[in-house]
């Protein structure tokens, strides 16, 4: 009789321990998939920006005939960004170059009052601003997801289980080029 009780309680302990481990493992998997999903969202927003730019250039060309250099910069930056989809780091660099080119374009458009009042230009400007914001928020959410996953991976007791099953680490979005931390200087010459 006594051995039965001991056996029963031993099994119960093992059962609870296994359930605990499964729970933590599943949480880690869920958080890891959140990180992957968040990364994919950034790609969605970047592609959207690529698709919007030709419309903007069409709308602007008629008004800004003397600004061929600025328009050329935007076109070139877009081509480079679209082809650089291999590596995450080089991709973010080329995308940041495109962001700066667009900022110059919008700054120059301040000198053209006819363009500023044009309804399609205004709505395109809002769309592009919103797309830039969405890219930032998507990166922000990616960073938040990586933070939650990394925290869960590092705290006790989940770190044991993460180590047992070799969960990979992710890096947050950071600025590689220190010059990008400076305020963007807009010059048109």
């Amino acid at each position, binding site marked *: 009789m006594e051995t039965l009780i001991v056996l029963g309680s031993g099994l119960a302990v093992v059962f609870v321990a296994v359930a605990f481990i499964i729970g933590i493992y599943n949480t880690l998997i869920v958080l890891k998939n959140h990180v992957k999903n968040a990364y994919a969202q950034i790609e969605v927003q970047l592609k959207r920006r690529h698709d919007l730019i030709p419309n903007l250039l069409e709308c602007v060309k008629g008004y800004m005939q003397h600004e061929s250099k600025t328009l050329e910069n935007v076109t070139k930056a877009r081509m480079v960004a679209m082809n650089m989809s291999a590596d995450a780091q080089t991709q973010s660099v080329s995308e940041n170059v495109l962001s700066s080119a667009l900022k110059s374009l919008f700054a120059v458009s301040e000198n053209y009052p006819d363009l500023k*009042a044009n309804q399609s230009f205004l709505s395109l400007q*809002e769309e592009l601003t919103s797309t830039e914001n969405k890219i930032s928020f998507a990166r922000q959410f990616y960073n938040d*997801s990586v*933070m939650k996953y990394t925290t869960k991976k590092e705290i006790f007791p989940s770190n044991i289980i993460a180590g047992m099953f070799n969960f990979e680490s992710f890096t947050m979005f950071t600025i590689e080029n220190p010059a990008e931390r400076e305020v963007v200087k807009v010059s048109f010459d």
Partner: protein
Amino acid sequence: MWDQIVKNNIQSIITMAFLLVLVLIMAGIMGFCLLGTGEGVVIGFFIALFIFIALYLSAKNNSVAFFAGSSVVKCDKKCAPVLFNVVEEMSIAAGLSNPPEIYIMDTSIPNAFATGICPEKASVCVTRGLLELLDRNELQGVVAHEIGHIVNRDIRYILSAGILVSIIAFMARAFSKSGGRRCSSNNSGGAFLILFLVIGIFAPLLSRLFYFSLSRKREYLADACAAQFTRYPVGLASALKKIEEWNKLQARRKKIAKESYETSEFNENPLMAAACIVPCAVKKDKDSLFSTHPSTTNRINVLMAMTSVDYSSYNTAYTKVTKEKPLISNRDVSSCKNHDIVLPVGVVAAVNDVKSLNSIKDTPIEEKIERRRDAEDIMWKHSGYIIINCDCGTRLKLPPSYKGKEVICPHCKKNHFVN
């Protein structure tokens, strides 16, 4: 995220359990007294459960209508592009699988609320007055606050708790009118009767107090979420300041003109009011026991005292300003500290400077006019009008019955194509 939300609010769970137990006790006693037998208790339970499910389902299926009546207008990207973009941006920052539906209420009172039992089927409603008052950053702060409610499943909690409170109040009133006499005549329930009267008077009161404290705590948490999503607590703080100024101006105008301005009917129902961003017509500006929302001054001060944007920073600011126990459980705070979410450089300076808060007086008049015209245009567009902005500054509003392909501006005579 679910475990974070639930564990953050052990108090909310205790509150809900307390309310539930109270409802069951009262239902049981009422059933017993009215029917005189033990089965009455069970019947009482079932009736209370039935009422709860009926109200819950009706709220779930007609969320926005349940809360606001019929004066809401559903919005899409064509109607209100800026608002649509703002909501989409915040849903990305919050990690929602699809952005909530957007509704606009045609009133000049600035307010906003969120409904929806689960994040996939949620909606956000703002008033036309809010769109007239706030700029893009502030609007983003308010929308982030509402999406914070959605993400924290606040609506489900507030709705359930609110329904329980209403059931308790209803039962107390019903019993005091009829059941009391029957109870005392049915059995030797003299002591029982006294017990029930005590419960009948204190229960509605107690339940309301618990409900309001639950609601206040959730509002602070939604503010913390807004700061985290936008990374810009000044936005929401500015919005709150502007709304408060607007309310004070309205109160003053009411007093001077002795007329009745638009009252906030939709705010007077406490079930509904808890979901809004600010209460209307608040008399005292501190956290009173009976208010659904914390005082706006406290909320603004906590937001401006933040040094970074994670929960632990909000907690620190909260304890510093309100001198109360921290809102968020220690377990989650400690897990946040390892990875501090730092405020961008420009924002740190803004947060520490109270002058960086926008106010209604400081907004240039042209901006106010422009925003008001934009907000009104949304309502025109929804009715099928085509809005054309002429270069001379005139806005042409063509009714749906206009069939022509071109239109001439009456001021500058420029020709516009109608698309």
